[in-house]
């Protein structure tokens, strides 16, 4: 036994003498870290790294089968799903791993921001981290293109349309993004190159730099209110804290990282197993236009924002806001590199995170049910509720048919069914008078198209008389106060002067001449 041990030590020494890496790695792993950061709040960075490794491994496995050709990509994904043993599972791991990775990277970023860990001397670590976030999102977008289904095809169209809004070089940029004049084989090839070679290379190199700087400066200590970061004193204080309370990172702090990473990996596996892979959706045939393209979950908020921007603001916002946002994130540690770290003393930081999180949450939620989109088949699938037909005159019932035929339901709800682009019509007559409804229908306005060309006078008459019956739970109909005033003043005029003509000599409506 002793002899075996001696042989083992000799073999190790032979290897280390030639390699020279084992001792430095061991030293790095066991570096002392202040005991106050051995916390469950400090586990997200290592979990993101573990997910990156999972993505690389599953990505390589998928590349064994996937064919990055516009002709074959979609079929090869279906082949993976249905014909290759466990192909569906590897696809599911890669897809869910991607969602988990973005989520963990975002949580990691918020934690580092709220703990003020980006301050001196870790400014560059943060800046590299911002680049890593952008690369991660780049992987997610290019990965969505790899799925090469309808959503991927029209998503590329959205990308090209946004590129086309860049002044002066828009056309060249579109050609550069698409690899040619149209979305096709060249487009998929270049997104494949980005997804498989360029971005992962940058990502791995960036993670290497990021981890190197974490080791160089040490994991940030737990922030305390009132303990300010000063460039002149911080490193000495950190050093003293480490000497006083330090414990080896591995194993005393790292066991939490390891447990969390295992939990996250297990969650990815569970989601992959129970929910399966993402798509592919419909085949990427641009002549199939019965489609409502949508991006993946983490881009839904952008999709929603694009629906709400006023036309005149869209191009400036699209081109300027991302630049400002990224520049702001990159410059943050250079502007606020010193001072208070604790969140309780940084209300602006807490408020910013809250506002951004709530906004992203709301836009993402809106993106899941797209209230701004017409429901294309509502006019032929959602009938007018029976209760709105009872006790109506033939003309009003005819109006209900016009409402249905003219596809009003695509944008307007009745009794909770139909599009949400325009207001629900259940109580329209309590908000608009008959004249106002006529004007709104014929001339449009307020984001409603004009239907003057699509309705003849009798259809309009029928439609409006039906709409006039929609008063919710028999609420008061809308009235035009000014008309009543006019009428009563006319009556008085008539009475006092006995005049048979109204103002400007027009006959008074409803009066026999």
């Amino acid at each position, binding site marked *: 036994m002793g002899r075996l041990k001696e042989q083992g030590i000799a073999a190790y020494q032979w290897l280390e003498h030639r390699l020279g890496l084992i001792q430095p790695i061991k030293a790095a792993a066991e570096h002392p870290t202040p005991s106050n950061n051995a916390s469950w709040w400090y586990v997200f960075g290592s979990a993101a790294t573990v997910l990156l490794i999972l993505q690389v491994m599953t990505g390589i496995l998928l590349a064994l089968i996937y064919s990055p*050709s*516009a*002709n074959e990509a979609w079929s090869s994904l279906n082949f993976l799903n249905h014909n290759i043993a466990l192909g569906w599972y590897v696809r599911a791991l890669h897809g869910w791993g991607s969602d988990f990775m973005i989520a963990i990277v975002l949580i990691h970023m918020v934690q580092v921001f709220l703990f003020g860990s980006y301050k001196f001397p870790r400014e560059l670590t943060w800046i590299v981290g911002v680049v890593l976030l952008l690369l991660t999102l780049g992987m997610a977008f290019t990965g969505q293109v790899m799925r090469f289904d309808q959503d991927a095809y*029209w998503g590329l*169209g*959205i990308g*090209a*349309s*946004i*590129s*086309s*809004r*860049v002044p002066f070089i*828009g*056309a060249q*940029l*579109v*050609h*550069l993004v*698409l*690899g*040619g*004049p*149209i*979305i*096709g*084989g*060249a487009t998929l090839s270049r997104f494949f190159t980005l997804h498989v070679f360029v971005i992962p290379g940058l990502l791995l190199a960036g993670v290497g730099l990021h981890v190197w700087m974490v080791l160089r400066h040490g994991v940030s200590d737990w922030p305390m209110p009132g303990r300010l970061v000063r460039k002149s004193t911080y490193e000495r204080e950190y050093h003293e804290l480490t000497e006083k309370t330090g414990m080896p990172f591995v194993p005393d702090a790292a066991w939490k990282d390891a447990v969390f990473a295992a939990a996250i990996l297990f969650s990815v596996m569970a989601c992959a197993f129970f929910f399966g892979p993402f798509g592919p959706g419909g085949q990427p*045939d*641009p*002549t199939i*236009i019965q*489609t409502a*393209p949508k991006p993946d979950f983490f881009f839904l908020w952008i999709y929603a924002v*694009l*629906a709400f*921007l*006023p*036309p*005149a603001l869209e191009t400036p916002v699209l081109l300027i806001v991302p630049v400002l946002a990224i520049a702001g994130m990159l410059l943050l540690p250079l502007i606020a590199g010193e001072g208070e770290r604790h969140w309780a003393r940084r209300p602006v930081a807490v408020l910013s995170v809250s506002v951004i999180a709530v906004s992203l949450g709301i836009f993402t939620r809106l993106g899941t049910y797209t209230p701004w*989109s*017409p429901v294309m088949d509502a*006019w032929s699938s959602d009938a007018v509720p029976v209760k709105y037909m009872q006790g109506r005159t033939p003309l009003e019932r005819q109006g209900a048919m016009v409402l249905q035929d003219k*596809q009003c339901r*695509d*944008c307007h709800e009745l009794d909770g069914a139909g599009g949400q682009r325009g207001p629900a019509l259940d109580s329209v007559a309590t908000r608009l008078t008959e*004249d*106002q409804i006529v004007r709104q229908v014929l001339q*449009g*306005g*307020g*984001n*409603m*198209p*004009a*239907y003057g*060309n*699509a309705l003849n006078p009798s259809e309009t008459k029928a439609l409006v008389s039906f709409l006039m019956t929609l008063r919710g739970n028999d609420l008061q109909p809308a009235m*035009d106060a*000014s008309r009543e005033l006019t009428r009563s003043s006319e009556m008085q005029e008539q009475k006092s002067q006995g005049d048979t003509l109204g103002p400007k000599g027009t006959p008074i409506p409803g009066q026999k001449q």
Partner: protein
Amino acid sequence: MSEFLKYPGESKNDILSPEGKAEAHTRRVFLFKMAVGLNAVVGAVLAVPLIGYLLGPASKKKSNVGSWISIGDVGEFPVGQTRLAEFRSPVATFDDGETAKVSCWVRRISEQTFQVFAINCAHLGCPVRWFSESKLFLCPCHGGAYYEDGSRASGPPERGLFEYRYKIAGSSLVIHAGDMPTLATQASCKDKPLVQIGPAAVETRSTTWEG
């Protein structure tokens, strides 16, 4: 830093006097600098064609893209109706597969006059659908709406639908197609104003609509 590779100042060379060091290094330093310069030149000569290759797709003149292509017999398009037509993009290459197929909306106004609209919404390129009853094109992505003549009706688009140039050759309808239509690479509709209507119509409903 490895224990075998010393920092400057720790090497045995340091015992040399400055003159000695300079003498020992002059020619090598010169040769090294020359070699660096040589690599810079070679690198530049190498980089120019590689960057040219990378930027190749962007360097094509946009007016050169595309050609005339038939989208069917004029008889397939009844007067007064708007119908979907398909064609294979004339700029497609060998591995474009299904993505080489293109749809467009053909509106026949009279015997001899047509309007051929791109399928792509002028907002962000999603495929618009024609609704003949309400005489509107609607976009499924962000709800852009266009009238039957392609002009903007409502929603986020800032202009009307893109139109292809067309001509009637014999009995077939021929259009000029190439680039995917976007705001920068419009499908040959340069003679049309970019923005067909101004900012959204002034809101009149709630205030003085009766004049």
